[in-house]
């Protein structure tokens, strides 16, 4: 077995040192009925690299990868071009095969990188501080609600209808067990976000209002008035960003008054990967830092007076506080944070703005082209790189029909909201810099044919 260095002679020498007659003698404390005599039955034996690669390649070949066809899916996961150096650098063994930086003297690479990541995320989201990452956007969203409940000592969260339905479902799952009240209704195919309705629902029991920006239909609304109304009620505004590239073009949630900003960082540096691993972003105001979940890296000095970085404020965390911790999170998304940070470093402010502008330009172009297709109506007045269409037909069936013709047309609202037939004509179309003119024409032609 190529991954196991011990030889039979080594094993014999080691048993002699231990004073055990056999390896099985080391398993003496396992109840006899639970000890297997040989390998688990009914499973194959070991395989060489070639055989395993062949098997995995066959499985991969049964998928249609996004880059091989015209591709317009978004809804919380976005296909952007990732510079080649990102994947090269994250595969350096010093990053890839390191553990959580518990021994800071020999983990300054990871710690400094995370400190830089925290700074980048805080600035991008318009907040004072950010943590070293969460699992993904949806779990970060729940953690933000839990944090708001700790701060306000209230247990009612109002979710915007524009919040990603998987995030809603994640929150509802958790709330069912914690007893938090969650107020939510599904969206309508309307041109504007539901800000006014949200303001109307705020009451004295409200811990937070959660609003996605841009929202699930790609709509963009000013959060300032909502922030004022939330704060007047003594509650917190939680903003959720599932497409951080948008913040190269539009104002940050923090600048508009959000108290906690969480997000899905996948779109920078982290590929689609069928949904994971992704990268939860979590940022807030300085005054709430001790209520934050997850790991934090801070700057300090070493015994020789040199700048260095350590994991800090860990008295919030499970390994110190146990049942009184702010969260049970331990392992987070360190390597995805590295990928995000490298991609952000390559872009810088100038590149992020240019990338955002290119996404928006192509999205506008696509929206205009598709709106000319008979039976297609553009829902949004404002959007960044994703918008909703209302088509004269069942969008889910249309998506399937186009997939059969090698066009991945977008995400149907029927897939996301199967219980809401009134949304069945809704189709989300995301347009990033990876989309070509030919792709746009292929989608338009496909829709024309499907709706004819």
């Amino acid at each position: 077995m190529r991954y196991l260095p011990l030889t039979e002679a080594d094993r014999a020498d080691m048993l002699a040192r231990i004073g055990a007659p056999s390896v099985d003698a080391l398993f003496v404390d396992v109840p006899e009925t639970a000890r297997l005599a040989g390998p688990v039955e009914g499973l194959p034996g070991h395989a060489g690299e070639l055989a395993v690669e062949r098997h995995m390649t066959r499985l991969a070949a049964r998928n249609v990868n996004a880059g091989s066809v015209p591709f317009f899916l978004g809804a919380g996961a976005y296909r952007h071009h990732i510079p080649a150096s990102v994947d090269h650098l994250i595969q350096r063994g010093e990053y890839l095969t390191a553990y959580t930086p518990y021994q800071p003297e020999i983990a300054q690479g990871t710690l400094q990188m995370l400190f830089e990541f925290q700074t980048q995320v805080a600035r991008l989201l318009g907040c004072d501080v950010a943590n070293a990452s969460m699992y993904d956007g949806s779990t970060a969203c729940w953690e933000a609600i839990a944090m708001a409940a700790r701060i306000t000592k209230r247990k009612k969260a109002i979710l915007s209808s524009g919040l990603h339905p998987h995030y809603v479902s994640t929150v509802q799952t958790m709330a069912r067990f914690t007893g938090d009240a969650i107020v939510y209704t599904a969206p309508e195919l309307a041109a504007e976000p539901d800000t006014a309705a949200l303001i109307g629902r705020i009451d004295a029991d409200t811990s937070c209002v959660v609003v996605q920006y841009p929202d699930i239909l790609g709509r963009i609304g000013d959060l300032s008035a909502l922030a004022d109304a939330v704060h007047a009620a003594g509650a917190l505004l939680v903003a959720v960003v599932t497409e951080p590239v948008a913040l190269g073009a539009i104002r940050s949630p923090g600048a508009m008054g959000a108290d906690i900003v969480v997000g899905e960082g996948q779109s920078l540096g982290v590929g689609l990967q069928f949904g994971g691993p992704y990268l939860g972003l979590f940022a807030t105001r300085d005054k709430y830092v001790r209520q934050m979940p997850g790991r934090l890296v801070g700057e300090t000095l070493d015994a020789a007076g040199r700048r260095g970085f350590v994991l800090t404020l860990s008295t919030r965390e499970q390994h110190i506080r146990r049942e009184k911790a702010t969260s049970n999170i331990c392992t987070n998304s360190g390597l995805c944070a590295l990928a995000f940070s490298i991609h952000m470093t390559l872009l810088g402010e100038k590149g992020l703005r240019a990338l955002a502008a290119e996404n928006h330009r192509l999205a506008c172009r696509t929206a205009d082209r598709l709106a000319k297709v008979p039976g297609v109506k553009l829902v949004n007045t404002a959007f960044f790189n994703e918008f909703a269409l209302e088509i004269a037909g069942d969008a889910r069936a249309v998506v399937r029909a186009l997939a059969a013709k090698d066009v991945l047309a977008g995400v149907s609202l029927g897939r996301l909201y199967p219980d809401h037939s009134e949304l069945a004509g809704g189709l989300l179309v995301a347009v990033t810099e990876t989309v070509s003119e030919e792709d746009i024409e292929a989608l338009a032609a496909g829709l024309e044919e499907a709706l004819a």
Partner: protein
Amino acid sequence: MSINSSGWRPSLGANDMVQDVTGTVTGNRGLLLEEPLLFELGTAETCGVDLPVPDPAAANRLGGLERDDALALPGLSEPETVRHYTRLSRQNYAIDLGIFPLGSCTMKHNPRLNEKVARLPGFADLHPLQPITTVQGALGVMAELGEWLLRLTNMAGVAMSPKAGAHGELCGILCIRAALEARGDAREVILVPDSAHGTNPATAAFANYRVESIPGTPDGRVDFEALKARLGPDVAAVMITNPNTCGLFERDMKAISDAVHAAGAFVYCDGANFNAIVGKVRPGDLGVDAMHINLHKTFSTPHGGGGPGSGPVVLSEALAPFAPLPFVVQTADGYHLVEEEGAAEAGGEQAFGRMSAFHGQMGMFTRALAYILSHGADGLKQVAEDAVLSANYMLRSLDDVLDAPFGASGPCMHEALFSDKGFADGLSTIDVAKALIDEGFHPMTMYFPLVVHGAMLVEPTECESKATLDQFIGALRNIAERARAGDSALAQTPTLAPRRRLDETLAARKPRLVWQG
């Protein structure tokens, strides 16, 4: 010297530039290179990606919300970027550099085949919401990996979506809560041994349970009598780590499970230590109802400096119907992904909802499956045997110079536990750990489990050669002897690493969590 926030030391006078620490002008020491922060290197105008220049006159549909403030995000060109992150990387220890014997963390070799297959475009470049006809191979990976996990544990169901160990714990505990609610049996308490990982009580509390601690016996195991005495109608579950954090197998595990079940409660097993028994012992045979499996431990997906992890949860027949959405089912016409609709028809009418967006850590599934297929059932058994053999070799090669609090409790499993008992006054576990750094090793887990004063938990894994084990043992023996003899130089270690000991009190007292410029 004050905290350097001014870049490449331009503001320092000529006399300040020669530091007593290094004796060099730059602060570098040969190949040990200092690296400024990105914010001290980059500018707002530098960019390492070529993109179309935006047309400032272009109309937009941003709803009047155009960004009107600076982002203050500096950029670097590609060569500067590659150099920045490469130079930083060299300040890290990693499993690729040497033994990483962190107890409870299972730092094993990360095969590069797994990296290669995870990057096949057919896996890496798939959107989670593509029509299922276009992702049959991906669903096949989930189904095949899930099947292996079920067979290796002899359990009835598996939830693939949890994103890490602690998330898997939460999934298992929520399954238990859902199962209890379904029979109208509200229970409030979860029992957790005092040697448990911190995530266990944190998870139970997060799921709105009251946590009560169960003591251990002097030989390092759960006090079965105390546990039995506490069982009752208010106890929902017991969370047990087996093998436990003292490195021992819970001999009474089957009897504990039987007693817990007789009291109407469930057994949650923390699977962090599964590497000791994988392919050798099946938790389902010990009466476990739910156990998370850290794919980033036992099945070698890379830790990546703190994640991503992946924590699928295997479930007993009693709990399997409550597993969260989504899940994969196979029919004659291929694989299906059961999401928000059709759950009831697919046998998931009691599924408790989503744990997260999308379907789990696919990038980890491909790596773990490649690892499992490479080993096969025979290789995985050998993994457990070599891991346990290597840990016992550590234990018996060091127990004459280091206190082994449970050295008389039988063989250890995949990790060997020592303590700082017997060290001279003023020296403790941290000094041994830091001295190991100067010897070129990553230290063991320090001060955990909490039930042992000055604990040192050593987990060599199956991936170390005997020569490496002997070298590590030789260094640790030498350091242990110096600690017993009172060599005060140990308290100053490390002196040869990129940094000396860091002031954690300063970091916590005046948190500087972002660069202020």
